């Protein structure tokens, strides 16, 4: 009887913990999985086809890096109850505030276009014309936000995060050698070949790991959700799980192309999906679905990140818990950003390659400021109280920020001048 009652008590306690976690979880998982957006999937597909399993260990390292950066936004949002854009204006004044907001707006709009490029390319594989894809996406994204509840939006977004795991069964269907993956992929080493090409791929993978929109999105999301100081440990777990999933998806995406497309030069994930269709139509289909889902997840987060940021600064109502009539400017910006991105993708002869290149450069101008401000704000005792960075967090975070600034700048320069590191 005693054993039974103890087991029942443990079960009740465990189920209470799980229910509490499910209530608080969301922003961390969504932002991390959305980090593997259309551009990210293309980078992983190209990495796998170029270097096989050799760089999987490097992707594993990027998980903790993403966690340490995003975890700071959780604390900042939960303690200050304001989004990152507003926090920059308040702490650093209007010059840095406007710089961040305008740069974020431009970078996000360009990134949104690249997400639409990914989504239209993915559905083109199934014979769906781009115009229909754009219409479907805008309707779907409209329905997600117009239902008027943050909670519902979040759970739908988590459903799309689960779809992102489609690369796992896709990889298993190709029967890769587990021994090869462990031997070649999990022991840190740099593969041979051109050092400049390898450096470019390493920088590209780092560039997809932390983007400015992620910082703005997660903090605004934490605020809109109403996360409190006491919920911070749960939100940290949420972010850890998200970081785990982002690495898992990235690694399995690499495994897919490394197993069957090794040595092939991949320029886009859609190209990889089309090639895989000829090898195994189910795997090709999975890759195309995954690419669409990645673009969709990226688009829902990026468009919201800007809408939230603008709403915070101008003092407009800016919550997913508000109806259109209560927050008209918030939704107006959200839909206009989607429409502009959709229209640009449909314009014949639009400079889409140039846009894809320019995204990285614009994001690089904002990333250092966004990261440095984060460290400075998290060290402000007056603002953060007991939740300010510890010495350990400062050492880790400062090292990560310096490395990220260096690598993302090098990546942007190499994107502008392809021969500079050769």
């Amino acid at each position, binding site marked *: 009887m005693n054993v039974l009652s103890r087991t029942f008590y443990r079960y009740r306690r465990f189920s209470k913990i799980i229910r509490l976690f499910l209530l608080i979880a969301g922003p961390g998982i969504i932002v991390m999985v959305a980090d593997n957006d259309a551009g990210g999937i293309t980078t992983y597909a190209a990495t796998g086809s170029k270097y096989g399993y050799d760089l999987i260990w490097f992707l594993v390292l990027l998980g903790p890096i993403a966690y340490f950066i995003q975890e700071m936004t959780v604390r900042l949002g939960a303690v200050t109850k304001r989004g990152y854009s507003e926090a920059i*204006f*308040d*702490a*650093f*004044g*209007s010059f*840095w*505030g406007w*710089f961040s907001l305008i740069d974020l707006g431009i970078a996000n709009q360009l990134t949104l276009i690249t997400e639409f490029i990914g989504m239209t390319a993915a559905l083109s594989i199934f014979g769906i014309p781009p115009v229909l894809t754009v219409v479907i996406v805008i309707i779907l994204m409209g329905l997600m936000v117009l239902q008027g509840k943050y909670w519902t939006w979040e759970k739908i977004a988590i459903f799309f995060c689960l779809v992102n795991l489609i690369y796992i069964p896709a990889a298993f269907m190709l029967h890769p050698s587990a021994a090869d993956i462990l031997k070649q992929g999990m022991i840190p080493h740099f593969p041979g070949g051109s050092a400049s090409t390898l450096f470019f791929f390493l920088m590209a993978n780092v560039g997809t790991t932390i983007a400015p929109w992620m910082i703005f999105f997660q903090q605004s999301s934490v605020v809109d959700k109403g996360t409190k100081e006491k919920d911070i440990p749960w939100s940290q777990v949420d972010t850890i799980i998200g970081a785990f999933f982002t690495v898992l998806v990235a690694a399995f995406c690499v495994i897919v192309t490394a197993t069957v497309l090794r040595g092939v030069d991949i320029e886009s994930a859609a190209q990889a999906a089309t090639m895989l269709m000829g090898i195994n139509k189910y795997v090709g289909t999975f890759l195309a679905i995954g690419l669409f889902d990645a673009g969709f997840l990226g688009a829902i987060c990026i468009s919201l990140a800007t809408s939230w940021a603008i709403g915070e*600064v*101008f*003092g*407009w*109502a800016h919550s997913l818990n508000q109806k259109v009539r209560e927050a008209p400017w918030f939704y107006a910006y959200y839909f206009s950003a989607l429409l502009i991105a959709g229209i640009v993708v449909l314009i014949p002869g639009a400079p889409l390659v140039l846009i894809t290149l320019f995204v990285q*450069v614009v994001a*690089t*101008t904002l990333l*250092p*400021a966004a990261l*440095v401000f984060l460290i*400075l*704000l998290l060290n*402000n005792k*007056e*603002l953060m109280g007991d939740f300010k960075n510890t010495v350990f967090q400062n050492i880790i975070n400062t090292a990560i920020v310096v490395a990220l*600034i260096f690598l993302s*700048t090098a990546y*942007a*320069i190499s994107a*502008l*001048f392809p021969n500079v590191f050769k």
Partner: protein
Amino acid sequence: MEENNNEFNQPKTFIGSIREVNAKYRTPRIQMTPIVKISLYALRFYLIGMLLILLYKFISSFIH
């Protein structure tokens, strides 16, 4: 907060809204310690550097 929202939701020009934001955030609230000052100067130099690189790329592409 509610009062602020109502106040901001009054019909006004876009320029008027920008002026209001500028007035509200005129003075940075963070204490200007040496580390903060150095960081902000470093960011300014970084931005100027990036702008110069972009300008060079633009001009060199235009000439070619």
